[in-house]
């Protein structure tokens, strides 16, 4: 028997585990969703992401009706109530269904005594909806549900765009694929999609990218098994394009897992002399191997620490091109991982910046004179991005910025893609040449 719990019950349990017990969110969702119908599984994902995206807004509603704060023991109940409120406030679920199912979920969690409270909060919200909305929309913190420190950071960096950035980080991400145009020209793939009832929309400036609507599972994507398509955000697809691999190059893809950019480099330039895909995490390197296999590509896959000065793992003493997709705060991809909002801390960002600096320094030593390095993050924090590179350029006389856009200077290096621009993830790229 499977204890086929109400998806609201599961959502409350999963969020409690992720925010309070340090369990990895998406892995837990996938594990629980395995035995569910596909309908229930996508509903569970919707609830989990929705509660995390609108956490402070939904908590604001609960707080308006509950005087006694929830404790560690019954915090699950609060998340279950928030699941119900999310349905009422954001999903247009019929009121009676949302209320009944949420009350049921609180029972399943083992808190029959809090069923009355659940009922009262949900009916209270329905009664005072307009008033609460007005009140909660007054501050950025509750309106967009972001921690204050992150709002401050984004405001300092992007000023007037603050509202747009926050709003875009709360949107559902699109399904974007990378088409290997050598295997299937893009027009042909658009036609294949439309034969299957799907629409493929090109992305400006990223010729191999298509946004697919409606989003579907990979098995429904034409030619997926043959390796002609890869699921990858359009912003990430620019890495290999900017790196611009040339025939005969020896290339290092540092921090390569899960291999999206690795495989793209090989598709763009099958005549590179060799490509080394390196990552610290042996488990995640399995994904690199799987992806190389599905796309029928070859690379040397090695497990190593990019921040260590011991280079004995490397089959080459120096590289023509290095793609450094650095570990980062992932603040540019919050729309895909809304838990980041609640798990990151300002201190953590400081230590990430330090680690990036160490890795940059270390990888720079592995670049041949005349070689090219592309630095990438999926962050929108200037300290990890433009300030990091500005600092690096000022400290390395042999480093020269190669602008990717007309606006770039050594004082303001790199291309910052803001989340939501052309429906892309937030990303940062800076390209540098090592002078002799």
């Amino acid at each position, binding site marked *: *028997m*499977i*204890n*086929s719990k*109400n998806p609201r019950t599961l959502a409350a349990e999963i969020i409690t585990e992720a925010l309070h017990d340090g369990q990895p969110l998406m892995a837990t969702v996938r*594990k*629980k969703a*395995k*035995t*569910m*119908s*596909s309908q*229930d599984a996508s509903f569970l994902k919707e609830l989990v992401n929705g509660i995390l995206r609108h956490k402070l807004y939904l908590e604001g509603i609960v707080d308006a009706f509950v005087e006694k704060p929830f404790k560690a023991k019954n915090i699950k109940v609060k998340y279950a109530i928030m699941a119900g409120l999310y349905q009422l406030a954001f999903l247009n679920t019929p009121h009676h269904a949302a209320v009944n199912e949420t009350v049921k979920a609180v029972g399943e969690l083992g808190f029959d005594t809090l069923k009355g409270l659940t009922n009262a909060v949900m009916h209270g919200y329905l009664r005072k909806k307009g008033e609460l909305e007005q009140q909660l929309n007054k501050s950025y913190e509750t309106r967009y549900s972001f921690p204050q420190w992150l709002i401050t950071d984004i405001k300092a960096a992007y000023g007037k765009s603050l509202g747009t950035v926050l709003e875009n980080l709360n949107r559902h991400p699109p399904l974007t694929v990378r088409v290997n145009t050598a295997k299937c020209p893009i027009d042909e793939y658009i036609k294949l999609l439309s034969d299957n009832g799907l629409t493929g929309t090109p992305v400006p400036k990223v010729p191999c990218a298509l946004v697919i609507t409606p989003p579907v599972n990979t*098995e429904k994507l034409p030619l997926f098994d043959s390796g002609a398509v890869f699921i990858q955000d359009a912003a990430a697809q620019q890495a290999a394009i900017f790196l611009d691999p040339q025939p005969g190059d020896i290339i290092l893809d540092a921090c390569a897992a899960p291999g999206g950019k690795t495989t793209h480099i090989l598709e763009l330039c099958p005549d590179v002399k060799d490509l080394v895909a390196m990552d610290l995490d042996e488990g995640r390197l399995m994904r690199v191997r799987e992806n190389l296999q599905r796309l029928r590509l070859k690379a040397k896959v090695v497990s190593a620490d990019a921040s260590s000065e011991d280079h004995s793992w490397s089959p080459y003493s120096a590289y023509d091109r290095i793609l450094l997709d650095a570990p980062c705060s992932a603040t540019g991809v919050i729309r895909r991982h809304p838990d980041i909002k609640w798990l990151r801390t300002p201190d953590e960002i400081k230590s990430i910046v330090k680690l990036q600096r160490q890795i940059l320094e270390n990888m720079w030593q592995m670049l041949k004179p005349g070689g090219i390095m592309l630095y990438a993050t999926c962050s929108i924090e200037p300290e990890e991005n433009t300030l990091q590179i500005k600092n690096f350029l000022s400290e390395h006389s042999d480093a020269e910025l190669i602008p990717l856009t007309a606006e770039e200077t050594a004082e303001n290096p790199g291309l910052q893609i803001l989340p939501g621009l052309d429906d892309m993830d937030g990303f940062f790229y800076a390209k540098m040449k090592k002078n002799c």
Partner: protein
Amino acid sequence: MAILELLYYPDEKLHQVSAPVTEFNDELRQLVSDMFETMYADEGIGLAAPQINVFKKIVVIDVVNEKKPEDQLVLINPEFTFKEGSTGIDEGCLSVPGLRGKVERSEKVTVKAQNLDGEFFELNADGLLAICLQHEIDHLNGKLFIDYLSPLKRNMYRSKAKALAKERERQKKHQD
């Protein structure tokens, strides 16, 4: 230790009645241990031997699902000695993936069974455990929770079962 292959609805073998266990040996212990592993791998809280193509009266249960030895129940040759009241929740089954359905069950039950050493014991249960016991002991009698649902629901599930079988086939090929 091994994860065993499950039988899936509409496999007719799932409607077969299982035979009592007569020998309590190491082979039985190994089977029970593999059954737990198979159950946990798919987030199950109960598993009956016929689900893994072994037609013997063996049931394993862990309704807490935290893999703690103190929560693990092994029931050999179980039968009900007492049933009372009425309850029901949305049930699901490892052999009927992707389907949930409410089944009417007794609220309180008493079960007589043997442990791995062949010793008899009695177990009183209510709540989820009572429901799980009824679901699993049904398996030993060749009965699935889907058999209690309306013919319409069963038929709707049949086409889905086909699609799921195909998907399992595809994944298996992928692993090889």
